């Protein structure tokens, strides 16, 4: 009898700790009910994307109680905070455009938990946490592949902010450029212990040598693999609007070919006229709807993409109006950066510290000979108070051989090699780049842009 009593107490104790997934029972149910009603909307065949969009928005707006339920759940409030940098993702959370994953694994004293995804036809945002009593500072190296383990193509993977404390939501973003989001994918998180690296002092490098950064594999303390399967209700969301509007800026003709509207972002796709003398490499712009609501360029993540073999950046991203029910959208362009076609490569003479031509406003100050190469120093005007990268990450020798520029540094001034004085500027910044193993003479650099257009009156283009 006593044994049975103890068994009873043990069984009760076992029931005291239900699985964490139980906490989201009601949320899963609500999402499932929405899908059940939603699937009736999709029950007919051959619904257009525009039609699917309309159904989803109607259902969201007719079910305010779900939004209320969301506001009561602390974890979703954490998600709202975690996406505060993106108005598109904030809107997605507010409209419960969130798929709960709730998968957790523990290995070697580290617990990784994939909480949610916000996913559409082209972009996947994964929100997860790491917990550990053993390691104070953990960072992940993420990888994705298909569910069957085969490689995926045509995507970029972005890791979220560095230094997020254990237990707080972190994010990973996967962008599919041309192909659509798969039905699911396999996420691998290699978790590294950064506790030691933060507290150790930086090594002091001798002044007569260029620093050679050697890649070290971090100390991985755990590896997790999660199979993520996406709700088709989300992965089908997206709409392409043909535009075909041409406009002129600074003597160059561009055509806004189309706009792709996804819950997570908007892509504006451009073509450049063949007669243009410069490539478009950056665009300052915003979208505005009929109510004056503004959708700015993305501030975190991919802001623009180009095509292989061309310096032109032909696709630009901004925050989405997906949940704003806009009837009309207008593109307002306030500035652009161009790379003149005759300035794609700049020839520099390191011995005379001269150049054939320089990007607008850039000054070539000095070329210091070091034991293992050259350190080049430039200054450039700040743009809206910010510094930027002047040069691309490659240099070419006189014979055309290509080399990498592994790093650069930006600061307010530089030490003049002849006088030893520290030189600073007003409204300019200094950039120094190392050319490892360079012997001097003639080298070629590729500027990121050669001139800038700032429009006092924005160039406006009707999107829809």
């Amino acid at each position, binding site marked *: *009898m006593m044994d*049975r*009593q103890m*068994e*009873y107490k043990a*069984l*009760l104790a076992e*029931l005291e700790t*239900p*699985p964490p*997934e*139980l906490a989201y*029972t*009601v949320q*899963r*149910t*609500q999402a*499932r*009910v929405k899908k*059940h009603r939603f699937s009736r909307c999709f029950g007919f065949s051959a619904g257009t994307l525009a039609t699917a969009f309309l159904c989803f928005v109607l259902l969201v707006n007719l079910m305010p*109680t*779900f939004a*209320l*339920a969301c506001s009561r759940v602390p974890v979703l409030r954490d998600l709202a905070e975690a996406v505060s940098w993106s108005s598109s993702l904030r809107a997605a959370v507010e409209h419960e455009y969130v798929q709960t994953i709730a998968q957790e694994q523990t290995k070697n004293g580290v617990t990784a938990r994939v909480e949610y995804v916000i996913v559409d036809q082209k972009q996947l945002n994964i929100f997860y946490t790491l917990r550990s009593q053993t390691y104070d500072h953990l960072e992940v190296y993420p990888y994705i592949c298909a569910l069957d383990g085969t490689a995926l193509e045509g995507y970029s993977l972005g890791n979220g902010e560095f230094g997020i404390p254990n237990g707080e939501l972190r994010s990973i973003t996967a962008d599919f450029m041309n192909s659509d989001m798969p039905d699911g994918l396999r996420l691998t998180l290699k978790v590294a212990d950064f506790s030691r690296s933060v507290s150790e002092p930086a090594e002091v490098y001798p002044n007569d040598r260029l620093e050679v950064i050697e890649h070290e594999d971090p100390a991985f303390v755990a590896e997790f693999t999660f199979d993520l399967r996406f709700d088709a209700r989300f992965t089908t969301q997206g709409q392409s609007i043909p535009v075909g509007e041409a406009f002129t800026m600074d003597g160059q003709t561009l055509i806004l070919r189309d706009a792709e509207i996804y819950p997570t972002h908007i892509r504006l796709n451009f073509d450049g006229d063949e007669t243009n003398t410069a490539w478009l490499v950056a665009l300052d712009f915003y979208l505005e709807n009929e109510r004056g609501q503004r959708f700015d360029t993305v501030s975190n993540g991919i802001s623009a993409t180009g095509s292989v073999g061309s310096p032109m950046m032909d696709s630009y991203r901004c925050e989405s109006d997906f949940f704003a029910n806009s009837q009309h959208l207008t593109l307002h362009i306030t500035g652009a950066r161009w790379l003149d076609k005759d300035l794609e490569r700049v020839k520099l003479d390191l011995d005379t510290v001269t150049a054939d031509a320089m990007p607008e406003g850039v000054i070539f100050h000095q070329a210091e000979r070091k034991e293992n190469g050259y350190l080049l120093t430039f200054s450039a005007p700040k743009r809206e108070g910010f510094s930027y990268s002047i040069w691309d990450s490659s240099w070419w020798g006189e014979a055309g051989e290509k080399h990498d520029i592994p790093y650069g540094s930006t600061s307010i001034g530089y030490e003049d090699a002849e006088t030893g004085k520290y030189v600073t500027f007003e409204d300019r910044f200094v950039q120094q780049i190392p050319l490892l193993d360079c012997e001097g003479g003639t080298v070629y650099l590729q500027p990121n842009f050669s001139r800038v257009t700032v429009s006092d009156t924005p160039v406006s283009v009707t999107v829809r």
Partner: protein
Amino acid sequence: MDQQEFAQRAEAIRERLYRTAYLYLGSQADALEAVDEAVYQGLLALKKLRQPAYLETWLTRILINQCKKELRRRNWQETPAEETSAELYDALPLKEAIRRLPEDLRSVIILRYFAGYTQRETARSLDIPQGTVVTRQRRALALLRLDLEEEDG
């Protein structure tokens, strides 16, 4: 009853539902799935609930039906051809012994002594008289050799 109230009340009893499902089905994953399904079915059929005051016992009944369905799917016998002998129950771990009980005794013991239902709540959930609850719990406790209070705590 609106969906918000349903959500609040379902959340309040989800652990009781889970315990019930766990003892029926024996695994966390199956129990979670059964609870999910029961709450889902309940939300879909909310308009059919004639007496909103009894939502909790109504959901429990849906859950138990869901568990029975899962057990049938597994081809487990709900009711053995002959009752398991008292000696055999003694030899089994408690969790297994509970699962071997005849269904009418099993449901009472789970709701009363693991999910925390009162006699009245158990009676409503199983749609049986309260007196029948008393009789069945006594019989189940005897078979399991458990010395527990028979009255509501």
